[in-house]
């Protein structure tokens, strides 16, 4: 069966410190991978998506970066956190499309990041 793991669940980091959030998917190959952020009043904002190893697309300019070193591993990073980076970060995956059939995305449990 397919599962998605995201850690840590909560994180408190000082301003200016680095960040690394990790997401791994099991049970499927070559998934589309996504990082979303839920901030107050902003809904679910797409940050990055990836269709394959080393292929990262960025949706919004920001203080964050993403990497996909392995097929089922997606990492969200920052060199120096800002107060505005606080939020609830969600990793998601979609199985590769087959024909014209679209599929839903499955989300991890999220990471609550508080920058102090």
């Amino acid at each position, binding site marked *: 069966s397919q599962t998605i793991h995201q850690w840590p669940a909560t994180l408190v980091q000082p301003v200016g410190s680095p960040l690394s959030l990790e997401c791994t998917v099991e049970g499927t190959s070559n998934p589309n991978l996504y990082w979303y952020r839920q901030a107050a009043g902003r809904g679910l904002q797409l940050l990055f998506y990836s269709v394959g190893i080393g292929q990262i697309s960025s949706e919004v300019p920001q203080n964050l970066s993403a990497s996909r070193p392995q097929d089922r591993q997606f990492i969200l990073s920052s060199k120096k956190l800002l107060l505005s980076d606080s939020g609830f970060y969600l990793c998601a995956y*979609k199985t590769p499309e087959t024909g014209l059939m679209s599929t839903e995305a499955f989300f991890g449990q999220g990471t609550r990041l508080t920058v102090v």
Partner: protein
Amino acid sequence: DQQVKQNSPSLSVQEGRISILNCDYTNSMFDYFLWYKKYPAEGPTFLISISSIKDKNEDGRFTVFLNKSAKHLSLHIVPSQPGDSAVYFCAASAVAQGGSEKLVFGKGTKLTVNP
């Protein structure tokens, strides 16, 4: 630029009545629409979806209606139950550059079902 809009941040209904959550979109390239349900401190869970070639999809108490000409979709929950209380996100899917598919979400509507 908010491509998927949920203009009602909250909705309150009585148990047993119908809940109607609305969503509008601006990008005519969206070809698949989804509703997600989210509890605090958890990831969203998929609820129901509809392809752009259909105008209605029903799954138990949940029905999604799509009006392509109006670029509008809605989620109907009937009868509503207290356990339905959550934030509901509307999402739309389109093929992005490079052939990948990305989901764009609205800001969510917080549904409260009162006993």
